[in-house]
C-alpha cells in the first residue's frame, strides 16, 4: 500500500469499515448480476430447483454457446445497437453542441424558460406519446428503417444532453470569447476555434451518456416503429429469447452479459473522462 499523506491515512478499523461499506454497496449493485450469471450457468432444466444454491452444481458455460444458435441474429442485434447508438450520439451532439453554446455563452431573453421547456420533454414518458409518434413516423415514412429508432431516440436524449453540456460550457471563462470577439472573431469562429476544443471533456461525457442511453434503453421505439428483424437493436434481440410461452432464461442471461460487454468495455476505457468531465461540469447548478 502506497504511503498516503497523513490526512488520507486510515486507521485499520476505518479501512475495515469502509471496505465493508463498499462491499455492501457493490453487493447491492451487483447481486442481480450474480443471480443473472448463476442463472446463465445452469442448465434450463435445473434452473428451478430448491433448496437455493449459491453455486450451481452442474454449472457450465453452455448457454453462452447455444445462445448464438437459438437466436442466430444476435450478433447482428449488437451491431445494430452500436450502429443506432453511434448515429444517435452523432445527431444528438450535432444538435446539442450549438444549442448548449447558445444557452451557456449568450445572454438572451427567454433562455431560462426555453431550457426549462427542453427539460420538460423528460416529464413525458415515451410510452404515453407512442400513438401520436407512430403517426408522425409514418407520415415521414420512417417506419421500419434504422431512422425509426434513431429519430425518436434523439429527441428524448436531447434534453439531458443540453443540460449537461451547457452547465459544462458555462464554466469556460467568459474572457475567452470576449478576447476572441475583440480580435474580430465572429460567433461561429469563436464557437469552432475557442469553445469547442475547450468543451471537449464535457462533450465526451455527453457522448458517453447519450451512447449508453441509446445502446441499452431504447426499447419501446424499436418495438413499435420497426418491424424489420435486420434492424432490431439489442434489447429487442434479448426478447427473442422469449419463446412462444417459455423463456430460455439461461440463454437470455448469457446474452445479456454478452450484449452489455461492449458497452462495459467502452465505459471501462472512458471512465476516467466520465468522472473528470462530470467533475468539471454538472455539479454546479
Amino acid at each position, binding site marked *: 500500500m502506497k504511503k498516503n499523506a497523513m490526512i488520507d491515512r486510515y486507521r485499520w478499523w476505518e479501512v475495515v469499515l469502509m471496505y465493508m461499506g463498499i462491499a455492501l454497496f457493490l453487493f447491492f449493485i451487483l447481486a442481480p448480476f450474480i443471480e443473472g450469471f448463476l442463472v446463465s450457468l445452469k442448465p434450463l432444466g435445473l434452473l428451478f430447483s430448491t433448496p437455493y444454491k449459491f453455486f450451481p452444481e452442474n454449472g457450465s458455460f453452455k448457454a453462452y454457446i447455444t445462445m448464438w444458435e437459438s437466436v442466430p441474429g444476435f450478433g447482428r442485434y449488437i451491431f445494430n445497437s452500436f450502429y443506432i447508438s453511434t448515429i444517435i450520439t452523432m445527431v444528438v451532439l450535432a444538435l446539442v453542441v450549438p444549442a448548449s453554446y447558445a444557452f451557456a455563452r449568450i445572454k438572451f431573453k427567454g433562455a431560462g424558460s426555453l431550457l426549462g421547456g427542453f427539460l420538460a420533454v423528460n416529464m413525458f414518458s415515451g410510452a404515453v406519446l407512442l400513438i401520436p409518434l407512430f403517426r408522425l413516423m409514418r407520415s415521414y415514412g420512417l417506419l421500419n428503417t434504422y431512422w425509426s429508432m434513431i429519430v425518436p431516440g434523439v429527441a428524448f436524449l436531447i434534453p439531458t444532453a443540453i443540460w449537461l453540456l451547457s452547465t459544462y460550457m458555462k464554466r469556460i*471563462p467568459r*474572457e*475567452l470569447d*470576449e*478576447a*476572441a*470577439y*475583440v*480580435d*474580430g*472573431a*465572429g460567433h461561429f*469562429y469563436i464557437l469552432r*476555434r*475557442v469553445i469547442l*476544443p*475547450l468543451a471537449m471533456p464535457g462533450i465526451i461525457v455527453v457522448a458517453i451518456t447519450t451512447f449508453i442511453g441509446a445502446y441499452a434503453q431504447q426499447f419501446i421505439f424499436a418495438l413499435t416503429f420497426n418491424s424489420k428483424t435486420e434492424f432490431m437493436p439489442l434489447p429487442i434481440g434479448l426478447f427473442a429469447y422469449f419463446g412462444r410461452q417459455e423463456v430460455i432464461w439461461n440463454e437470455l442471461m448469457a446474452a445479456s452479459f454478452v450484449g452489455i460487454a461492449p458497452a462495459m468495455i467502452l465505459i471501462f476505457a472512458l471512465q476516467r473522462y466520465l468522472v473528470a468531465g462530470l467533475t468539471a461540469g454538472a455539479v454546479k447548478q
Partner: protein
Amino acid sequence: MGQLALSGVKKRFEKLEVIHGIDLDIKDGEFVVFVGPSGCGKSTLLRMICGLEEITEGDCTIDGTRVNDLPPVKRGIAMVFQSYALYPHMSVFENIAFPLRVEKRPEAEIKEKVGRAAAVLQLENRLHQKPGNLSGGQRQRVAIGRAIVREPSIFLFDEPLSNLDAALRAEMRIELTALHQKLKATMIYVTHDQVEAMTMADRIVVLDGGSISQVGAPLELYHKPANLFVAGFIGNPKMNFIPGTCTAVSPEGATVELVTGASVTVPVTAAGMLQGQPVTLGIRPEHLTQGAGDVSVEITPTVVEHLGVNTVTYADLEGVGNVSALLSGSADVAPGQPARLSFSAADCHLFDAEGQALERRVDSAMPIPAAASAG
C-alpha cells in the same frame, strides 16, 4: 490615429446606473491610467470603450468617428485581459496569431508578424509551448503579443499585472513602458495599484463610484488632490486626516484649529466664508518628522515597521483615528513608546466640509519625498 473622446457616457445594468456620465479626452499616443477602488466602474468603462459593453447613454468617439455601435475590431482597439484570456488549447504561436487567422491573412504574413511580436516580447523560444506551461510573466507577454499583432491604435489593459508577484510586476511594468515608447500607440490602463499608476501614466483618471474624481498627471494628483477622496487614495501610506475648524482666513492662508488643540495657518487660497466652518486638514505620513515643525502631535505607536531606509509607525490618536508616519530609517521609535511628531504648514492640505480641496500654493511638479511609494 488613436485619439479617443468620451462624452456624457453612462452605463446602466438593468435599473442600476454604475457609470454616471463620464467626459474624457485622450490624446493620440497618451498613456492614461484609470484608478479607483474596487467596484468603482473601471472595468465597465474600459469594456464600453472596447465595445464589450453597450454604452447606455453618451458617445464614444475615436479619431472623430462615433464608434458606439461598432464592434471592437472596427474600432482599432485591442484589449489585454486581467486573466490574460489565453486559449489553453493553442500554442503560444497560435495564440498570438489568432487575430490574424481571424482576418485570414496569408500564412507568410502571419509567420512574420508573430515572429516580430515574439521578438519584441522575448517569446521566440516559447512559440510552440502551450500557455499552461508558461510562467505568469510569459503568459502576460503572450496576451500582449496577441494585442500587438493587430497593430491597433488603442490598447486597453484591464489590471494586466494583478495576477503577478511583486518582482514580476515591477519587471512587466518596465516592459510595458518600453513598449509604449516603442509603439507610440494610445494606451488605456486600468489598475488599482498606485505604483503602477504613478510610474506609467501620462495622466491618471481617478474614478470614484462611477464618476471621475480627478484627472491629472501623477505628481499633480499627489501634490494637489482635488478632494478628500483623491487625497486619501493617492499616496501610501495613506494621507492622515485631522478634523478641525477654520478660525480665520487671510491672504497667507486659512488658519485652522485642530481637534488636537494645535492651530496652524495653511497656505491655501480660501474664501472668507470658510471662517467658522469645519474643515479637514490632510498631512501625508512622509511629511511627519521627529524634528521641529509648525505643528506637533504626540503619538504612541502601536506598530513600527523597519524598512531599512524608512521606518513606518502606526498609532491611534484620539479624535483623529489612525495616524501613520514615514520616518527615516534611523528614527528612534518603538511600539508603545510615546513619540512627538511634527509637520510644517506648507505640507498641509485643506479640505472644506464637502471634502473639496482648497487650492495649495505649491508647484505640482515637485518630487515626492522618500518612499512615498513603498509597499
